[in-house]
């Protein structure tokens, strides 16, 4: 257990578009151990969903993925062919999507869809698969599990569907779960329940989890490791405590100032803002991608940006050694 379950080095994703190449993801590195939860947080267009699809080998044909290293439990994913990937997907690595309504097939019963992966990947009979399906539905907190098997997705509420999605992902006891905005479409109360469920199950089954989200609250409460993504780059990585209690990169700090925090932000006071929009990533990106919106930007931001390591496992990329020009008071 010394080597991590998943190791990614210099992952790059290029998308050919009319008139050039969109450098959607550039040089991403991270490690993930068993039982750990990594949250990739970023706004729309940051490339966080592409990253998860790249890990699963689910990028569209035109999209180019390169990496110097991408290993899942010793299997080199950069060289894995379709057959290898198919064997991994649904079995050892599983994915949970944002909108359970569109990721469940409306034409098949819950039971059918739950048992499918198991029958496909494992040499088990129908009865055993059925028993396993019932067991998992109960595990994700669904009552009357046996009768649910014959129901269709449209007969369930959004929260229940997301639970079914989770049960489906867990059927083959995967070692890695990638959840892309699993709670964004849900109500806050249901969101808390689903997140608790994911965290508990992850711990219980010693699963590694990658959670993609834009919600800083979710990240702070769920993550062991946090990766802040901006315009295709990881601008800051570290433990949840490091990133939230001592954020270094100007983007991370800016994001935290943008959200009203009950008890901390004065009611009705002005919230912090990050002016501007994500830069155009077509055709060569140099320097810091955040410099167009950064209040700390200097001329050197156009050049190569150094990696900084303020603490063990805490990294960020900025020309300023502490992420800002002049010492700031607490965020």
């Amino acid at each position: 257990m010394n080597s991590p379950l998943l190791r990614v080095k210099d992952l790059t994703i290029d998308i050919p578009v009319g008139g050039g190449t969109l450098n959607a993801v550039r040089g991403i590195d991270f490690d993930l151990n068993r039982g750990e939860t990594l949250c990739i947080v970023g706004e729309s267009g940051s490339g966080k969903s592409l990253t998860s699809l790249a890990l699963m080998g689910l990028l569209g044909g035109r999209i180019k993925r390169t990496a110097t290293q991408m290993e899942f439990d010793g299997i080199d994913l950069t060289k894995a062919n379709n057959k290898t990937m198919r064997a991994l997907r649904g079995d050892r690595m599983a994915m949970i999507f944002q909108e359970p309504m569109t990721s469940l097939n409306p034409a098949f019963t819950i039971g059918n869809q739950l048992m499918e992966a198991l029958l496909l990947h494992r040499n088990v009979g129908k009865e055993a698969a059925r028993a396993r399906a019932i067991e998992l539905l109960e595990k994700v907190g669904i009552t009357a599990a046996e009768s649910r098997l014959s129901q269709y997705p449209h007969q369930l509420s959004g929260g229940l569907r997301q639970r079914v999605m989770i049960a489906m992902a867990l059927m083959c006891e995967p070692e890695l779960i990638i959840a892309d905005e699993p709670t964004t479409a849900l109500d806050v109360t249901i969101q808390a329940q689903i997140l608790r469920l994911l965290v508990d199950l992850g711990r219980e089954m010693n699963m590694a989890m990658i959670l993609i989200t834009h919600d800083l609250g979710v990240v702070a409460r769920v993550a062991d490791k946090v990766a802040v993504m901006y315009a295709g780059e990881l601008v800051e990585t570290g433990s949840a405590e490091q990133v939230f209690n001592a954020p270094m990169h100007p983007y991370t700090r800016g994001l935290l100032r943008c959200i009203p925090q009950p008890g901390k932000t004065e009611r009705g006071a002005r919230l912090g803002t990050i002016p501007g929009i994500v830069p155009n990533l077509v055709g060569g990106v140099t320097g810091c991608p955040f410099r167009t919106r950064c209040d700390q930007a200097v001329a050197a931001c156009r050049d190569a940006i150094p990696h900084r390591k303020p603490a063990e496992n805490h990294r960020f990329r900025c020309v300023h050694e502490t992420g800002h020009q002049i010492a700031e008071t607490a965020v």
Partner: protein
Amino acid sequence: MSDATTNMTPDPMLEAIVGPTPGQMLRKRIFGHQGLMIGVVVLGILVLVAIFAPLLAPHDPYAQSLMARMKPPVFLGGTWEHPLGTDHLGRDYLSRLIYGARVSLLIGLVAATISGVIGTAMGVAAGYFGGKVDAVVTYLINVRLAMPVVLVALAVVAILGGSLQVVIVVLGLLLWDRFAVVMRSSTLQVRGREYVAAAKAVGCSTPRVLMSEIMPNIANNLIVVMTLEMAHAILLEAALSFLGLGVQPPTPSWGLMVSEGKNMMLFEPWMVLIPGAVLFVLVLAINLMGDGLRDVTAPENRS
């Protein structure tokens, strides 16, 4: 002006409006679509031919000459006097083809317009108002779909007598079903958009909401169905004329020309093949254009 703006005045975000307008993007897609361009060019040529028929036709399409019956076209050993030969009454085949384009295009355009108006009104009303209106329209559509078009058209034309006007009106009153179905579902999609709610909240009257919020957003589908139904109407006219119940002789109609040539088909196959080929080219061009328009106006659904 206000405190509200002070934070954003030198906002680089606002420099970011650089994308082309929807019109520019549409133009780019139109010119980049091969099928659409081929369809438009071919159809354009045929329309021009129809408009300038009197200038282009070498002979009077009605002038008979019993001395020059069934002359073969040039490529089968005929003369340039009649490039595509003459028919069994000695009328110049090329001139009849050219004038025939007028009949086909006229029928296609007018019949599709009539059914377009009927079907759009019904479909939009059904989709927008729902409830009882929708139930009635859906019932009418089902009734219409249960009627075989060709059979009904044949029966009506047989009773009223065939003529250009009768064929146009009959086809116009029969071909609205697809308009109604498509417009109904497009309206259903658009009706739930928040800009419709916003327009209502602003105080827009229902006709105004329909005309300025709903219609512009379903017009692309209307155009696509329109082209398909034009092709449909043209083919039906040819079929009716072929059966002797459409446009009446001596009017030059491609369907009629095929019909008149069919007796000689074994000996002079070109008499059927030439009008058949032009009909094929016209319908193909319209369908290419329709498919192309569907592609370029609904880019959200395909990458």
